[in-house]
Protein backbone atom coordinates (compact mmCIF):
# COMPACT_ATOMS: atom_id res chain seq x y z
CA UNK A 1 0.00 0.00 0.00
CA UNK A 2 2.80 2.37 0.89
CA UNK A 3 4.50 1.94 -2.47
CA UNK A 4 1.19 2.38 -4.22
CA UNK A 5 0.49 5.59 -2.34
CA UNK A 6 3.99 6.93 -2.94
CA UNK A 7 3.66 6.29 -6.67
CA UNK A 8 0.20 7.82 -6.66
CA UNK A 9 1.42 10.91 -4.84
CA UNK A 10 4.29 11.27 -7.23
CA UNK A 11 2.13 10.89 -10.32
CA UNK A 12 -0.84 12.96 -9.19
CA UNK A 13 1.18 15.44 -7.14
CA UNK A 14 -1.68 16.12 -4.73
CA UNK A 15 -1.75 19.15 -2.46
CA UNK A 16 -3.55 17.28 0.26
CA UNK A 17 -5.36 14.04 1.00
CA UNK A 18 -7.31 12.53 3.86
CA UNK A 19 -7.26 8.77 4.47
CA UNK A 20 -9.72 7.19 6.87
CA UNK A 21 -9.72 3.59 7.93
CA UNK A 22 -10.94 1.76 11.00
CA UNK A 23 -9.88 3.89 13.98
CA UNK A 24 -7.26 5.91 12.14
CA UNK A 25 -7.20 9.04 10.11
CA UNK A 26 -4.23 10.22 8.11
CA UNK A 27 -4.21 13.83 6.97
CA UNK A 28 -1.60 15.14 4.59
CA UNK A 29 -1.10 18.71 3.44
CA UNK A 30 -2.66 20.75 6.27
CA UNK A 31 -1.16 24.11 7.05
CA UNK A 32 -2.17 24.51 10.70
CA UNK A 33 -3.73 22.61 13.58
CA UNK A 34 -6.18 24.91 15.32
CA UNK A 35 -7.62 22.51 17.87
CA UNK A 36 -6.32 19.18 19.08
CA UNK A 37 -8.33 17.65 21.88
CA UNK A 38 -9.45 14.18 22.95
CA UNK A 39 -12.83 14.56 21.25
CA UNK A 40 -12.24 17.26 18.66
CA UNK A 41 -9.61 18.26 16.11
CA UNK A 42 -9.59 21.14 13.67
CA UNK A 43 -7.17 21.46 10.76
CA UNK A 44 -6.74 24.25 8.22
CA UNK A 45 -6.18 22.78 4.77
CA UNK A 46 -5.71 25.40 2.08
CA UNK A 47 -9.08 27.10 1.52
CA UNK A 48 -11.18 25.10 4.01
CA UNK A 49 -11.14 23.76 7.54
CA UNK A 50 -11.56 20.11 8.47
CA UNK A 51 -13.28 19.35 11.76
CA UNK A 52 -13.22 15.85 13.22
CA UNK A 53 -15.39 14.86 16.16
CA UNK A 54 -15.16 11.66 18.13
CA UNK A 55 -13.56 10.09 21.24
CA UNK A 56 -10.13 9.22 22.60
CA UNK A 57 -8.09 10.92 19.91
CA UNK A 58 -4.41 10.13 20.10
CA UNK A 59 -1.59 11.41 17.96
CA UNK A 60 0.50 8.59 16.51
CA UNK A 61 2.76 10.61 14.20
CA UNK A 62 3.14 14.30 13.61
CA UNK A 63 5.24 16.26 11.13
CA UNK A 64 5.04 19.73 9.62
CA UNK A 65 2.11 19.00 7.28
CA UNK A 66 1.12 15.45 8.10
CA UNK A 67 -0.60 13.78 11.04
CA UNK A 68 -1.76 10.28 11.95
CA UNK A 69 -4.56 10.25 14.50
CA UNK A 70 -6.12 7.28 16.27
CA UNK A 71 -9.51 7.26 17.97
CA UNK A 72 -13.24 6.68 17.50
CA UNK A 73 -14.30 8.99 14.69
CA UNK A 74 -17.96 9.90 14.81
CA UNK A 75 -18.18 12.86 12.53
CA UNK A 76 -16.02 14.65 9.98
CA UNK A 77 -16.92 17.80 8.13
CA UNK A 78 -15.56 20.66 6.06
CA UNK A 79 -16.13 24.18 7.31
Amino acid at each position, binding site marked *: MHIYKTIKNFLLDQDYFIDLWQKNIHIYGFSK*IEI*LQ*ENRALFIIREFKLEILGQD*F*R*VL*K*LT*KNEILLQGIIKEMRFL
Partner: protein
Amino acid sequence: MKESYEWVSVKVSNPDRFFLKCHEKNIAIYEIQRMNNEVKIKIQTKDYSKLKQIWFIKIKKIEPIGIQALKKKIQKHHIFLIAIGIGLVFLYVLSHIMLSVTVVHSNQDIRFLLMNALEEKGIKENTWRKSYQEIEKIKQEILDEYPDQLEWLEIEVNGLNYIVRVEERKLEQEDSTPEACNVVATKDGIVKEMIYMNGEALFKRNDSVKKGDILISGTIKKDEETKSTVCATGSVYAEVWYTVKASVPLSYEEYEITGKTRWNIKLKNTSYHDFLFKSRLETYDEEITPLFTLFGTEVSFVKQHETVKKVFTMEENEAADKALTLALEKISATLEEKETIIAKKVLKKEVNNSTMNIEVFVSVLEQIGERQEFTVEE
Protein backbone atom coordinates in the same frame (compact mmCIF):
# COMPACT_ATOMS: atom_id res chain seq x y z
CA MET B 1 23.44 13.00 5.13
CA LYS B 2 21.69 10.35 7.14
CA GLU B 3 19.36 11.80 9.79
CA SER B 4 19.91 10.74 13.37
CA TYR B 5 17.02 10.16 15.72
CA GLU B 6 16.63 9.86 19.43
CA TRP B 7 14.01 9.00 21.99
CA VAL B 8 12.98 11.64 24.53
CA SER B 9 10.84 11.22 27.59
CA VAL B 10 8.47 14.18 28.13
CA LYS B 11 6.54 14.85 31.35
CA VAL B 12 3.43 16.77 30.42
CA SER B 13 -0.06 17.18 31.94
CA ASN B 14 -1.81 17.91 28.64
CA PRO B 15 -0.29 15.95 25.73
CA ASP B 16 -2.53 17.54 23.09
CA ARG B 17 -1.26 20.98 24.00
CA PHE B 18 2.25 19.66 23.76
CA PHE B 19 1.64 18.22 20.25
CA LEU B 20 0.19 21.52 19.13
CA LYS B 21 3.27 23.28 20.42
CA CYS B 22 5.49 20.79 18.64
CA HIS B 23 3.68 21.48 15.40
CA GLU B 24 4.00 25.19 15.97
CA LYS B 25 7.73 24.82 16.46
CA ASN B 26 7.98 22.53 13.48
CA ILE B 27 9.17 19.47 15.44
CA ALA B 28 8.44 16.23 13.62
CA ILE B 29 7.40 13.32 15.83
CA TYR B 30 7.97 9.93 14.23
CA GLU B 31 6.79 7.62 16.99
CA ILE B 32 4.81 8.13 20.17
CA GLN B 33 4.41 5.95 23.27
CA ARG B 34 2.01 7.21 25.92
CA MET B 35 2.12 6.49 29.64
CA ASN B 36 0.30 8.20 32.52
CA ASN B 37 1.80 11.66 32.69
CA GLU B 38 4.62 10.86 30.37
CA VAL B 39 5.02 10.64 26.61
CA LYS B 40 7.98 9.05 24.91
CA ILE B 41 8.61 10.49 21.48
CA LYS B 42 11.09 9.79 18.68
CA ILE B 43 12.40 12.99 17.14
CA GLN B 44 15.29 14.08 14.98
CA THR B 45 18.37 14.95 17.00
CA LYS B 46 18.45 18.41 15.51
CA ASP B 47 14.94 19.13 16.94
CA TYR B 48 16.03 18.48 20.52
CA SER B 49 17.06 22.10 21.07
CA LYS B 50 13.64 23.26 19.86
CA LEU B 51 11.99 20.85 22.28
CA LYS B 52 13.93 22.38 25.17
CA GLN B 53 12.35 25.75 24.41
CA ILE B 54 8.86 24.49 25.35
CA TRP B 55 8.50 25.74 28.89
CA PHE B 56 5.62 23.63 30.27
CA ILE B 57 7.25 20.25 29.85
CA LYS B 58 10.09 18.36 31.51
CA ILE B 59 12.27 16.44 29.10
CA LYS B 60 14.85 13.74 29.54
CA LYS B 61 16.91 12.00 26.90
CA ILE B 62 16.51 8.22 26.80
CA GLU B 63 19.85 6.57 26.29
CA PRO B 64 19.69 4.12 23.42
CA ILE B 65 20.27 0.41 24.08
CA GLY B 66 21.36 -2.55 21.97
CA ILE B 67 23.35 -2.25 18.75
CA GLN B 68 22.51 1.43 18.35
CA ALA B 69 23.91 2.19 21.79
CA LEU B 70 27.01 0.20 21.03
CA LYS B 71 27.51 2.02 17.76
CA LYS B 72 27.07 5.37 19.50
CA LYS B 73 29.58 4.48 22.21
CA ILE B 74 32.07 3.24 19.66
CA GLN B 75 31.68 6.48 17.71
CA LYS B 76 32.17 8.52 20.86
CA HIS B 77 35.29 6.69 22.05
CA HIS B 78 36.74 5.65 18.69
CA ILE B 79 40.13 7.32 19.25
CA PHE B 80 40.54 5.62 22.62
CA LEU B 81 39.53 2.25 21.15
CA ILE B 82 41.92 2.63 18.22
CA ALA B 83 44.73 3.52 20.65
CA ILE B 84 43.97 0.43 22.75
CA GLY B 85 43.90 -1.70 19.60
CA ILE B 86 47.24 -0.39 18.41
CA GLY B 87 48.64 -0.85 21.92
CA LEU B 88 47.48 -4.46 22.08
CA VAL B 89 48.93 -5.23 18.67
CA PHE B 90 52.19 -3.55 19.68
CA LEU B 91 52.28 -5.52 22.95
CA TYR B 92 51.56 -8.77 21.15
CA VAL B 93 54.31 -8.13 18.61
CA LEU B 94 56.79 -7.09 21.31
CA SER B 95 56.05 -10.09 23.47
CA HIS B 96 56.49 -12.49 20.55
CA ILE B 97 59.78 -11.18 19.19
CA MET B 98 62.89 -12.74 20.69
CA LEU B 99 65.68 -10.24 21.17
CA SER B 100 68.57 -12.46 22.20
CA VAL B 101 69.87 -16.03 22.31
CA THR B 102 72.20 -17.00 25.15
CA VAL B 103 73.97 -20.35 25.29
CA VAL B 104 75.04 -21.20 28.82
CA HIS B 105 78.20 -23.33 28.74
CA SER B 106 81.82 -22.86 29.73
CA ASN B 107 83.23 -24.41 26.53
CA GLN B 108 83.53 -21.86 23.75
CA ASP B 109 83.51 -24.54 21.02
CA ILE B 110 80.21 -25.94 22.26
CA ARG B 111 78.73 -22.45 22.42
CA PHE B 112 79.88 -21.71 18.86
CA LEU B 113 78.62 -25.06 17.54
CA LEU B 114 75.25 -24.64 19.20
CA MET B 115 74.78 -21.03 18.12
CA ASN B 116 75.33 -22.06 14.49
CA ALA B 117 72.96 -25.02 14.79
CA LEU B 118 70.28 -22.87 16.42
CA GLU B 119 70.66 -20.16 13.79
CA GLU B 120 70.18 -22.75 11.04
CA LYS B 121 66.97 -23.87 12.72
CA GLY B 122 65.66 -20.31 12.97
CA ILE B 123 66.38 -19.64 16.63
CA LYS B 124 68.20 -16.31 16.43
CA GLU B 125 67.91 -12.69 17.48
CA ASN B 126 65.01 -10.50 16.36
CA THR B 127 62.84 -13.36 15.12
CA TRP B 128 59.29 -14.44 15.90
CA ARG B 129 59.03 -16.67 18.97
CA LYS B 130 58.79 -20.40 18.21
CA SER B 131 56.00 -22.45 19.69
CA TYR B 132 56.64 -25.10 22.33
CA GLN B 133 56.24 -27.92 19.78
CA GLU B 134 58.68 -26.26 17.36
CA ILE B 135 61.26 -25.78 20.11
CA GLU B 136 60.95 -29.42 21.18
CA LYS B 137 61.40 -30.52 17.55
CA ILE B 138 64.47 -28.30 17.07
CA LYS B 139 65.98 -29.62 20.31
CA GLN B 140 65.61 -33.19 19.16
CA GLU B 141 67.00 -32.42 15.69
CA ILE B 142 70.11 -30.75 17.14
CA LEU B 143 70.69 -33.63 19.57
CA ASP B 144 70.38 -36.08 16.66
CA GLU B 145 72.81 -34.04 14.54
CA TYR B 146 75.52 -33.88 17.21
CA PRO B 147 75.29 -37.14 19.13
CA ASP B 148 79.01 -37.15 20.01
CA GLN B 149 79.16 -33.57 21.25
CA LEU B 150 75.85 -32.99 23.03
CA GLU B 151 74.42 -35.03 25.88
CA TRP B 152 71.42 -32.91 26.82
CA LEU B 153 69.87 -29.67 25.62
CA GLU B 154 67.22 -27.33 27.00
CA ILE B 155 65.86 -24.20 25.34
CA GLU B 156 64.08 -21.90 27.76
CA VAL B 157 61.98 -18.92 26.76
CA ASN B 158 62.65 -16.29 29.38
CA GLY B 159 60.79 -13.08 28.58
CA LEU B 160 62.12 -11.99 25.21
CA ASN B 161 65.25 -14.15 25.46
CA TYR B 162 66.10 -17.70 24.56
CA ILE B 163 68.33 -19.25 27.21
CA VAL B 164 69.93 -22.45 25.97
CA ARG B 165 71.41 -24.82 28.52
CA VAL B 166 73.53 -27.66 27.27
CA GLU B 167 75.45 -30.57 28.67
CA GLU B 168 78.52 -31.66 26.75
CA ARG B 169 78.95 -35.37 26.01
CA LYS B 170 82.28 -36.60 27.33
CA LEU B 171 83.33 -39.85 25.76
CA GLU B 172 85.13 -42.09 28.22
CA GLN B 173 88.79 -42.42 27.40
CA GLU B 174 90.59 -45.66 27.78
CA ASP B 175 92.33 -45.91 31.10
CA SER B 176 96.01 -46.18 30.39
CA THR B 177 97.64 -48.01 33.17
CA PRO B 178 101.40 -47.52 33.34
CA GLU B 179 103.54 -50.61 33.33
CA ALA B 180 105.43 -49.98 36.56
CA CYS B 181 104.50 -47.85 39.52
CA ASN B 182 104.69 -47.58 43.30
CA VAL B 183 102.30 -46.13 45.83
CA VAL B 184 104.19 -43.51 47.87
CA ALA B 185 103.26 -41.50 50.98
CA THR B 186 102.23 -37.89 50.41
CA LYS B 187 102.40 -37.01 54.14
CA ASP B 188 103.99 -38.09 57.39
CA GLY B 189 101.77 -40.32 59.50
CA ILE B 190 101.04 -43.66 61.17
CA VAL B 191 99.59 -46.35 58.91
CA LYS B 192 96.14 -47.51 60.08
CA GLU B 193 94.70 -49.36 57.11
CA MET B 194 96.08 -50.59 53.79
CA ILE B 195 94.04 -51.93 50.88
CA TYR B 196 95.97 -53.01 47.77
CA MET B 197 95.29 -55.02 44.63
CA ASN B 198 98.70 -55.13 42.97
CA GLY B 199 102.18 -54.82 44.38
CA GLU B 200 103.87 -55.58 47.67
CA ALA B 201 103.13 -53.76 50.94
CA LEU B 202 106.24 -52.49 52.65
CA PHE B 203 104.57 -51.22 55.85
CA LYS B 204 102.22 -52.72 58.40
CA ARG B 205 99.49 -51.22 60.63
CA ASN B 206 100.79 -48.69 63.21
CA ASP B 207 104.11 -48.27 61.31
CA SER B 208 105.30 -44.70 61.12
CA VAL B 209 105.91 -43.40 57.57
CA LYS B 210 107.44 -40.24 56.18
CA LYS B 211 106.53 -38.26 53.13
CA GLY B 212 107.98 -39.94 50.01
CA ASP B 213 108.26 -43.45 51.52
CA ILE B 214 107.17 -46.26 49.17
CA LEU B 215 104.13 -47.80 50.82
CA ILE B 216 103.22 -50.38 48.18
CA SER B 217 106.01 -51.38 45.86
CA GLY B 218 105.52 -52.28 42.22
CA THR B 219 108.70 -54.36 42.24
CA ILE B 220 108.00 -57.98 43.15
CA LYS B 221 111.07 -59.51 44.75
CA LYS B 222 111.95 -62.94 45.96
CA ASP B 223 115.16 -63.54 47.88
CA GLU B 224 116.31 -59.99 47.10
CA GLU B 225 115.96 -60.71 43.41
CA THR B 226 113.50 -58.77 41.25
CA LYS B 227 111.08 -61.22 39.74
CA SER B 228 108.69 -58.85 38.01
CA THR B 229 107.32 -55.30 37.97
CA VAL B 230 103.67 -54.30 38.21
CA CYS B 231 101.74 -51.09 38.64
CA ALA B 232 100.99 -51.08 42.37
CA THR B 233 97.45 -49.97 43.16
CA GLY B 234 95.83 -49.46 46.53
CA SER B 235 94.78 -47.06 49.24
CA VAL B 236 96.75 -46.41 52.42
CA TYR B 237 94.94 -44.74 55.31
CA ALA B 238 97.13 -43.19 57.95
CA GLU B 239 96.77 -40.97 60.98
CA VAL B 240 98.08 -37.50 60.12
CA TRP B 241 98.13 -34.31 62.16
CA TYR B 242 97.24 -30.69 61.58
CA THR B 243 97.32 -27.50 63.60
CA VAL B 244 94.43 -25.24 62.68
CA LYS B 245 93.76 -21.64 63.71
CA ALA B 246 90.32 -20.05 63.83
CA SER B 247 88.96 -16.65 64.94
CA VAL B 248 85.44 -15.62 65.89
CA PRO B 249 84.38 -12.05 66.89
CA LEU B 250 82.61 -11.82 70.25
CA SER B 251 79.98 -9.50 68.76
CA TYR B 252 78.59 -9.72 65.25
CA GLU B 253 75.80 -8.27 63.12
CA GLU B 254 73.08 -10.13 61.29
CA TYR B 255 70.29 -8.95 59.03
CA GLU B 256 66.88 -10.40 59.89
CA ILE B 257 63.91 -10.43 57.46
CA THR B 258 60.90 -8.57 58.92
CA GLY B 259 58.31 -10.03 56.54
CA LYS B 260 57.52 -6.68 54.90
CA THR B 261 57.86 -6.82 51.10
CA ARG B 262 57.80 -4.29 48.28
CA TRP B 263 57.71 -4.77 44.49
CA ASN B 264 59.85 -2.88 42.00
CA ILE B 265 61.25 -3.00 38.47
CA LYS B 266 65.00 -3.03 37.99
CA LEU B 267 66.72 -1.70 34.88
CA LYS B 268 70.25 -3.00 34.46
CA ASN B 269 72.74 -2.02 31.83
CA THR B 270 76.48 -2.52 31.44
CA SER B 271 77.09 0.99 32.75
CA TYR B 272 74.34 1.50 35.34
CA HIS B 273 71.49 -0.13 37.21
CA ASP B 274 68.55 1.56 38.84
CA PHE B 275 65.01 0.97 40.05
CA LEU B 276 62.00 2.27 38.14
CA PHE B 277 60.20 3.26 41.35
CA LYS B 278 61.69 4.77 44.45
CA SER B 279 62.47 2.13 47.06
CA ARG B 280 60.85 2.86 50.43
CA LEU B 281 62.87 0.27 52.35
CA GLU B 282 66.21 1.19 53.92
CA THR B 283 67.75 -2.26 53.98
CA TYR B 284 66.45 -5.25 52.08
CA ASP B 285 67.21 -8.53 50.36
CA GLU B 286 66.37 -8.81 46.68
CA GLU B 287 64.61 -11.63 44.84
CA ILE B 288 65.16 -10.92 41.13
CA THR B 289 63.12 -12.42 38.27
CA PRO B 290 64.42 -11.38 34.81
CA LEU B 291 61.63 -10.33 32.43
CA PHE B 292 63.24 -9.32 29.14
CA THR B 293 66.12 -7.40 27.61
CA LEU B 294 65.30 -4.33 25.56
CA PHE B 295 68.00 -2.44 23.63
CA GLY B 296 70.72 -3.82 25.87
CA THR B 297 68.91 -3.02 29.12
CA GLU B 298 67.85 -5.96 31.23
CA VAL B 299 64.43 -5.43 32.80
CA SER B 300 63.77 -7.49 35.93
CA PHE B 301 60.98 -7.83 38.42
CA VAL B 302 62.30 -7.39 41.96
CA LYS B 303 60.72 -8.47 45.22
CA GLN B 304 62.37 -6.62 48.11
CA HIS B 305 62.24 -8.21 51.57
CA GLU B 306 62.87 -5.68 54.31
CA THR B 307 65.67 -6.55 56.73
CA VAL B 308 66.74 -5.10 60.06
CA LYS B 309 70.24 -5.15 61.46
CA LYS B 310 70.67 -6.99 64.77
CA VAL B 311 73.83 -7.07 66.87
CA PHE B 312 74.57 -10.28 68.76
CA THR B 313 77.21 -10.70 71.48
CA MET B 314 78.61 -14.03 72.65
CA GLU B 315 80.17 -15.25 75.86
CA GLU B 316 83.82 -16.36 75.63
CA ASN B 317 82.91 -20.03 76.01
CA GLU B 318 80.28 -19.80 73.33
CA ALA B 319 82.75 -18.04 70.99
CA ALA B 320 85.39 -20.70 71.75
CA ASP B 321 82.94 -23.47 70.84
CA LYS B 322 82.05 -21.69 67.64
CA ALA B 323 85.71 -21.17 66.75
CA LEU B 324 86.39 -24.87 67.40
CA THR B 325 83.48 -25.87 65.15
CA LEU B 326 84.84 -23.51 62.49
CA ALA B 327 88.33 -25.05 62.74
CA LEU B 328 86.94 -28.58 62.42
CA GLU B 329 84.79 -27.52 59.45
CA LYS B 330 87.93 -26.23 57.75
CA ILE B 331 89.52 -29.67 58.09
CA SER B 332 86.33 -31.56 57.16
CA ALA B 333 86.03 -29.56 53.94
CA THR B 334 89.29 -31.10 52.69
CA LEU B 335 88.43 -34.70 53.60
CA GLU B 336 87.33 -37.31 51.08
CA GLU B 337 85.00 -40.26 51.62
CA LYS B 338 86.13 -42.67 54.39
CA GLU B 339 88.46 -39.95 55.79
CA THR B 340 87.52 -38.81 59.30
CA ILE B 341 88.68 -36.71 62.23
CA ILE B 342 89.97 -39.07 64.93
CA ALA B 343 90.81 -36.64 67.74
CA LYS B 344 91.16 -32.94 68.55
CA LYS B 345 92.75 -30.83 71.26
CA VAL B 346 92.67 -27.09 71.83
CA LEU B 347 96.25 -25.91 72.17
CA LYS B 348 95.75 -22.19 72.67
CA LYS B 349 92.74 -19.99 73.42
CA GLU B 350 92.90 -16.18 73.79
CA VAL B 351 90.78 -13.06 73.38
CA ASN B 352 92.35 -10.24 71.45
CA ASN B 353 90.54 -7.12 70.15
CA SER B 354 87.11 -8.60 71.01
CA THR B 355 87.98 -11.67 68.91
CA MET B 356 88.33 -15.21 70.16
CA ASN B 357 91.43 -16.86 68.63
CA ILE B 358 92.04 -20.55 69.07
CA GLU B 359 94.63 -23.03 67.87
CA VAL B 360 93.53 -26.65 67.58
CA PHE B 361 95.55 -29.82 67.10
CA VAL B 362 93.58 -32.26 64.95
CA SER B 363 94.35 -35.90 64.29
CA VAL B 364 92.84 -37.16 61.02
CA LEU B 365 92.50 -40.56 59.30
CA GLU B 366 93.49 -39.75 55.73
CA GLN B 367 94.40 -41.54 52.50
CA ILE B 368 98.08 -40.74 51.94
CA GLY B 369 98.98 -43.16 49.14
CA GLU B 370 99.74 -41.72 45.67
CA ARG B 371 100.70 -43.63 42.52
CA GLN B 372 104.14 -42.83 41.19
CA GLU B 373 105.51 -44.34 37.98
CA PHE B 374 109.04 -45.58 37.63
CA THR B 375 111.08 -46.92 34.79
CA VAL B 376 112.35 -50.47 34.83
CA GLU B 377 116.04 -50.81 34.17
CA GLU B 378 116.89 -53.57 31.71
